[in-house]
């Protein structure tokens, strides 16, 4: 079974801090994703990566950056945390799939981040 592990289940930080959320997957997947999940809004894509050292902006990248130095690890960075970044953060990975894609995404259990 694919295992996607997020480093923290709960995290509390202060406004202005630099925050690192870590994600590791053990299935040699090329694709990795960071989402935030807020009530009534579903999952919104922040950043994704198709390969090591590659990154692409998702739908809501403002205030975030990412790092992918190794294939199995994808880090989300909040450069200067703000209260509106309080949310559930979910990491996912997938393989590239064929021409149609349609590969399932495998999710971690999430990090609930509170910015005070």
């Amino acid at each position, binding site marked *: 079974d694919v295992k*996607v592990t997020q480093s923290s289940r709960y995290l509390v930080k202060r406004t202005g801090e630099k925050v690192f959320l870590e994600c590791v997957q053990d299935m040699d997947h090329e*694709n990795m*994703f960071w*989402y935030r999940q807020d009530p*009534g*809004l*579903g*999952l*919104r*894509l922040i950043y*994704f990566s*198709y390969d090591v050292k590659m990154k692409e902006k*998702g*739908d809501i990248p403002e205030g975030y950056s990412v790092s992918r130095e190794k294939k199995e690890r994808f880090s989300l960075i909040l450069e200067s945390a703000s209260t509106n970044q309080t949310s559930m953060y*979910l990491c*996912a990975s*997938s393989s*590239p*799939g064929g021409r*149609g*894609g*349609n*590969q*399932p*995404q*495998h*999710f*971690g*259990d*999430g990090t609930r981040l509170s910015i005070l």
Partner: protein
Amino acid sequence: TQLLEQSPQFLSIQEGENLTVYCNSSSVFSSLQWYRQEPGEGPVLLVTVVTGGEVKKLKRLTFQFGDARKDSSLHITAAQPGDTGLYLCARGAQKLVFGQGTRLTINP
């Protein structure tokens, strides 16, 4: 970003009842995935539908992809408390766009 609308947003029913939740879009999509997310966990894929009119069954869950490939439905027969969770539909290939979800509660 092409939107997916899910309805209803919330549904609370008694054990043993049947229910249907919907996922709609104004544009055609090539495939659709359904995920279930239980409290404290990440979403888990239930099924992928790719052909217009396709019907897939997973025990008491029946998934249908509309003929025009603009909508999909999930029907649960004889719901059980273990079906409680957030049901999400998603479109796309490698990069997915998710609906806002239907939060389903099955009361014993």
